[in-house]
């Protein structure tokens, strides 16, 4: 039980621990209080929000009907799940039919050439989520591979920092929407042999994500390396560690908590940027889904967009949690702001 508590606290799920403590028989009154605070209060806030939402939504009339309340949203979420199931069933039927067709053809003529087509139905909502996640991770990876080494050099050398600082300060606040046309043109000009597994739209959104999510990681890494505890440097000096060992054994681990704090911010920014980039680049993904529904303008479109908005929020939250866990693991027992 002690491990459950420690594990849930590492995950940032502090609301699990009072339950675990209650089961293991710690002072029930205190644990009930903790449950009330950590579980009851948020649940109450959600209930109030839902109530407010349904009342406010029903009184707003748009050209696509009234704004969807929680009930319509849940209904649409169910409908979208059914669509997904239906699409999967269609895909299964397609492949079954293909196998039968090919088998029949071979039976008639054993030397006949058979073809195996891949199913080409429209992407389901879950496919869109998958694409978005792959894109954001690709962009985030590129951003990390650039930001951490550059940040490290900036942190180690005040000269480099002084040189790059104006550039960083100017590019940091640029909106993804401003980058997008430039990235689009550059990718179109440079990326000629388009591979099937890496379509142009994917490259464009991933690079836009990278360009925008680069900065928090870079700045935090530089700060982490530059503000390293003087005692650690003294240890390195007394041991006369060579530069490479100094970086890998002293500077990087010392900066790790701040590096991960930066990566966490980067991933958050990247996820926000991605939706905007997908809308404009028409890269399949959640952003495109929202845009298509908006253009579609059916009576259920708004409810479907709300489902997408909530999905984006939940995934963004989950990504943040993952980063918090990594940040905790990298902090070696020092506290982390959740």
């Amino acid at each position, binding site marked *: 039980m002690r491990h459950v508590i420690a594990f849930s606290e590492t995950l940032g799920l502090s609301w699990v621990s009072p339950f675990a403590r209650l089961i293991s028989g710690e002072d029930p009154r205190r644990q009930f209080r903790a449950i009330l605070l950590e579980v009851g209060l948020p649940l109450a806030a959600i209930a109030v929000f839902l109530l407010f939402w349904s009342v406010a939504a029903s009184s707003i009339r748009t050209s696509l009907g009234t704004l969807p309340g929680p009930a319509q949203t849940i209904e649409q979420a169910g409908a979208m799940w059914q669509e997904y199931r239906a699409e999967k069933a269609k895909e299964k039927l397609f492949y079954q039919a293909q196998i039968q067709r090919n088998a029949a053809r071979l039976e008639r003529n054993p030397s006949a050439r058979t073809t195996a087509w891949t199913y080409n139905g429209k992407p389901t909502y879950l496919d869109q989520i998958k694409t978005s996640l792959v894109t954001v991770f690709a962009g985030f990876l590129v951003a990390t591979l650039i930001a951490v080494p550059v940040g490290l050099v900036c942190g180690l050398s005040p000269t480099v920092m002084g040189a790059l600082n104006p550039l960083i300060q100017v590019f940091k606040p640029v909106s993804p929407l401003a980058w997008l046309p430039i990235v689009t043109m550059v990718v179109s000009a440079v990326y000629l042999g388009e591979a099937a597994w890496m379509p142009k739209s994917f490259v464009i959104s991933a690079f836009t994500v990278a360009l925008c999510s680069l900065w928090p990681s870079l700045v935090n890494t530089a700060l982490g390396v530059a503000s390293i505890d003087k*005692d*650690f440097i*003294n*240890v390195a*000096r*007394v*041991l*006369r*560690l060579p530069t490479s060992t100094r970086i890998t*054994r*002293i500077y990087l*681990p*010392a900066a*790790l908590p701040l590096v991960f704090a930066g990566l966490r911010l980067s991933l958050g920014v990247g996820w926000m940027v991605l939706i905007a980039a997908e809308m404009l680049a028409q890269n399949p993904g959640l952003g495109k889904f929202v845009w298509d529904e908006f253009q579609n303008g059916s009576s259920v479109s708004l409810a479907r967009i709300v489902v997408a908005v909530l999905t984006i929020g939940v995934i963004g939250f989950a990504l943040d949690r993952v980063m918090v866990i990594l940040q905790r693991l990298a902090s*070696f*027992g*020092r506290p982390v702001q959740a």
Partner: protein
Amino acid sequence: MSFLNMKGVCKGFGQGSTRVEVLRDINLEIQEGEFVAIVGYSGSGKSTLIQLLSGLSLPDQGTIELDGKRIEGPGPDRGVVFQNYSLLPWLTVLGNIELAVERVFPKYTASQRREHAMRYISMVNLAHASDRRPAELSGGMRQRVSVARALAMQPRILLLDEPLGALDALTRGKLQDEIESIMMAERRTAVLITNDVDEALRLADRVIPLHPGPGAVLGPHFPVPMARPRDRAELNDQPEYRRLSGEINQYLSDLRRGAQGGVAALDPALANLAPVHFKRRRGVANVQTVS
């Protein structure tokens, strides 16, 4: 020729009118195998002195020589035990010590390195905690790791910068016992910086008060002849210990009085003050001075 030799060492910080001379003309000779303690008030320049000995900073004037070789930078031949432990929090106890061993004995195989590190971890009684990280250790345990790390480097001289300053009195006493027994076994040259006269008398062969800065110089030397091991309880009954303790404390408090009055140390002249009498008369406070 002595083992460690400081000649006319000066060190200050800042430039021009804001310059503060911390140490002025420090001369010190230490023999091989000798344990010297330097006692002084906080802010008297003790830490600057250890910084100079470790080579983490260099003197403005004068020279420091270790075994005839001038000190021109930090190096693993001088093991430093820092006041705030300076352990790397991302490494375990073993990892912290192995990092040092790796640098000093680069030819060791992984198992030799481990064995060497474990020997010193056992020496400070931490074998059971070798795979813990510093955050999981108490202050006393952390300082033991720091001592083990410095010893594992097998330095020519051990520099202890107020190693027990941040610990509570009980842990402090226990660690003093441990350090004494380790030093008796290892017989290494050591310099201890401390603000605790009793600690200095328990551990050192020679105690030197630091005449406080700005412009600090070393005071007279007090050889400590008591036999080892020096038991804490018995020490208090030894006349020699009481005499030394009294003399050093007297010297230090004279210094302090001198510093506060702004008059020359060791010769504190009394300021010309007259007593004041207060008299209360019918609810009205009336002050009368009688001189």
